[in-house]
């Protein structure tokens, strides 16, 4: 995946996570190290579930158990990296 496409994917994922998070954080202030839950975006479990479903639509991929592992849920960067890798394995996807 080239940098431009990855950047667009990151932008889309961050927008979804910020929309569902309860932290008062602007998208511009989100870094790859920003945690998803406490101390970061403050997603709750339902918000995370809804975010996953929207990320699937954005990336046009079907996520699976691996996408809900502790490693993937660590921070924004780990989510973007995981979705990018699923897209590559699936041979494309969006956005």
């Amino acid at each position: 995946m080239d940098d431009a496409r990855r950047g667009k994917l990151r932008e889309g994922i961050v927008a979804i996570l910020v929309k569902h998070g309860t932290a008062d954080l602007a998208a511009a202030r989100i870094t790859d190290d920003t945690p998803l839950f406490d101390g970061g975006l403050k997603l709750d479990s339902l918000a995370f579930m809804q975010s996953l479903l929207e990320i699937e639509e954005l990336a046009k991929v079907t996520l699976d158990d691996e996408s809900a592992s502790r490693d993937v849920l660590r921070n924004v960067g780990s989510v973007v990296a995981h979705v990018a890798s699923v897209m590559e394995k699936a041979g494309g996807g969006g956005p």
Partner: protein
Amino acid sequence: MTLLRGRPLGAALWAAQHLLPLRAGFAALRWLARGAPDREPAAWHMRVAAAALDLEGEALRDWYRRLWWGREACLAAEVRLRRKATRVLARLVADIDWTPLEQRLAQRRGVLAIGAHMGPHFIARWAAARRFDQSLFVAVNVSADTEGIAVRDPAQRAVALANSIFHLRRGGMVVLAGDGAFGERALTTAFLGCPVTLRRGPAALARASGAVTLPVAAGWKDDRVVVHFGPPIEPCADRVDAEAWEAEWLRLYVGWLEGRMLGAPEDLRMKGGIWGMLRDSPVSQIRRIAAPAAAALPGMA
């Protein structure tokens, strides 16, 4: 019966639950249950039954004896679960008819088996884990006998919800309690006329996964564990108002639980889950349930 007050009762109870063979223990508990209303005259369970079922006198005392027996029999069975007494437990659950669940699983659209804090639910969960290899258990305490996902903190719950959705989309079964205490968001509904606040996670999972919901409650029949299935809640249509759909899902689920009050008292247990919420409500708020509703609820004992 004076002998059974205080410590001597504790010893007799302990012996019935831990020392005697299970069937003999159940018989001993039945004998001990005879004095239960006298030993615990202020039990809130009796106040709930008097208000909700309009019971009084000997009928109320008999109702409480049966409730008491069911609660203590659950503990006796759970002792065998902790001891991993597999052969004893297998006999105990041999009469469970899983047909409604099997029929729904055969449709390969995913089944959310939604339980409650009623009856010997730990034993039914153990039986389900042995029977269905495509099941995923989501619970606060996940035992070694039923592998599953715990839900104590937000990250655990996020993992549990996501894995549950993926599992249901593959046509599997997810088992969880609908009246659990852990979760960030909640909805309030009425149970026996009293407001109860339940977590939104199970309803949200049903909505987002597109799986059918099958209410499940464990109970007793002839000293064996049986399972009662409620009317299925069909999957959510696309593009509905999420909160309104989840509120309706909760109303149907709680309505089914409420109907179980009309069934066998030994199947209620009345401990934890929704009962803890009811316990905080004034008895004056408890609404009487009409007996004819029992016939309208499939799966009633």
